[in-house]
């Protein structure tokens, strides 16, 4: 129980620190976004009016007061108002997050299928040259820029083969290429870790015993080896999540999809600090939650870890 409490406390600590870092980093911006928006001569506001606006945004208070307000708001899911459009950040993100989460979840599923397929093919294929070639695929996949992969896929499947319409594809049809673009780079670290732990597990003495009893390689892989290989793969879930979020942002830009990626790009163009801050904090929260989940799940999946967790 103390293990669980410790993990939760540590996760909350990281989250608070991430919020603080994002606050300090972005609050230190040269001209604050409120000024950029309201000082433009087109609006013709008087200095007094601007001061009132600043006050309403809380920009005139001390740094510590602002931090307290921001933190209290963030805890309740309130990230203030966009400095560029005036809309509540919560509404902006709420509208965009669905399509990004859908993309990310489908991307992760596809990546997992791809990684397992690669690992199994590299292990079971009887032709060593082909297995070797498949083994080196993940190192190629990590070297491919996500944005370029998306462009090349559009090039091939939409323009050369004409399989997927570029103009107004259906909702499902429009998802195929973005999901594929996202899945390929995510599958690489997963496939590498699976391959490595499959190799380790296959060399374990108990596998030799099962093999001696007459089990085929395929049976062995399905019943003994893959389960052993799953735990190490679980531990990189947090890293994968980071890549998934970054990849989704880029993929959305390439395929002109509305989502967190579009909001991020807009926030950057208009120096919209509250929006970027909220996105960074939410991403860190997702990372912390996933890692906490892995830390708590790993001892359940792998009994060997239970002793260590109890210690």
């Amino acid at each position: 129980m103390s293990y669980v409490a410790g993990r939760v406390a540590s996760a909350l600590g990281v989250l608070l620190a991430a919020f603080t870092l994002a606050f300090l980093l972005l609050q230190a911006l040269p001209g604050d976004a409120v000024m950029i928006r309201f000082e433009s001569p087109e609006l013709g506001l008087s200095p007094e009016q601007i001061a009132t606006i600043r006050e309403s945004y809380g920009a005139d208070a001390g740094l510590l007061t602002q931090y307290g307000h921001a933190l209290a708001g963030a805890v309740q899911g309130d990230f203030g108002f966009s400095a560029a459009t005036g809309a509540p950040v919560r509404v902006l993100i709420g509208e965009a997050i669905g399509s990004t989460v859908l993309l990310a979840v489908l991307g992760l599923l596809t990546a997992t299928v791809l990684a397992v397929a690669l690992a199994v093919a590299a292990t079971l294929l009887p032709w060593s040259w082909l297995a070797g070639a498949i083994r080196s695929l993940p190192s190629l996949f990590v070297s491919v820029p996500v944005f370029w992969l998306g462009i090349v896929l559009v090039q091939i499947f939409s323009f050369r083969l004409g399989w997927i319409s570029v103009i107004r594809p259906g909702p499902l049809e429009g998802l195929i290429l973005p999901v594929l673009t996202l899945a390929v780079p995510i599958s690489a670290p997963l496939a590498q870790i699976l391959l490595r732990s499959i190799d380790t597990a296959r060399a374990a003495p108990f596998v030799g015993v099962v093999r001696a009893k007459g089990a085929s390689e395929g049976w062995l892989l399905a019943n003994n080896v893959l389960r052993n290989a799953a735990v190490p793969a679980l531990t990189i879930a947090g890293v994968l999540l980071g890549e998934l979020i970054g990849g989704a942002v880029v993929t959305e830009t390439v395929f002109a999809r509305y989502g967190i990626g579009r909001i991020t790009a807009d926030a950057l163009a208009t120096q919209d600090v509250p929006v970027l801050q909220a996105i960074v904090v939410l991403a860190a929260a997702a990372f912390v939650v996933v890692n906490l989940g892995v830390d708590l799940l790993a001892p359940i999946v792998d009994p060997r870890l239970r002793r260590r967790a109890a210690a």
Partner: protein
Amino acid sequence: MSTDLSLAPGPSAVLAEEAGVEAGDAAGAAGTVGGVAAGGAPGRRRRRLPALTVVASFALLGLVVAWALLPALFGHADPYAGVPSEKLAGPSPAHWFGTDTTGRDLFTRVVYGARYSLLGGAVAVTVGLVAGTAIGVLAGTIGGILDEALMRVVDVLLAIPALLLSLSVIILLGFGTTSVAIAVGVTSVAAFARLSRSEVARVRRTEYVEAAFGSGGRWWQVLLRHVLPNSLTAVLALAALQFGTAILAISTLGFLGYGAPPPTPEWGLLIAEGRNYLATAWWLTTLPGIVVVLTVLAANRVSVWIARRSEA
């Protein structure tokens, strides 16, 4: 936090894993994941085979460095002024990578663009290496509260996705090649910090370091004479890996439009500019992308090679 390390491989190990199939050795060198079951015989066979890919990787990186240093030797056309009558021509012996909308030779532009990627990658790795190693060595040698505090900062840096972290730095520093390079460097600070801290911890436990302390050496003397030189290979391997990652990230940020403004022939920007001609001129996006992929692949291969050498 020690339970954290025992359950999950450190970021250096995970990053090293991205380098290549045989990166198990790199991760082992990083001191986090070890014991890949590579038997003696396949190990020997593998050692001879990759030599060719290592040579090819070094040759490719050398060529790209030469492009960056002496672009006029390789690209014979003008990277900024085109010949309008030759616009949007496909790859040919005269124009290896074809020409763009204003008739500029794409190969020449890729050659001239090499310096932005390489210089940016070098700046990024330097930022990550210097800041990260300083944090890691301080945390590892002084320990105590400072260690705890510094490692919490590293945890936070790891919790924010790399792209969002670099975008936060870019919004702070403004757009441009230098801020992009620094922003990408910030994302690698955590990996260097964790690696150097674990290296310091590893070397500190060795007998010769105890002997150096026992014979009256001060901690900074021991640090400079023994700990740092012995951590060098692992740090170098990570640096090579981060160099490849940085080139990838720089091209991504360039593509998104946060780097150099047009008409700079930065690789990511070249691909972004070619996007509008997907149907008519495939070479504008495909060929510069292949150059990026090959450069990153070569850097990753060199990283694995460095890490494996330290094993032997």
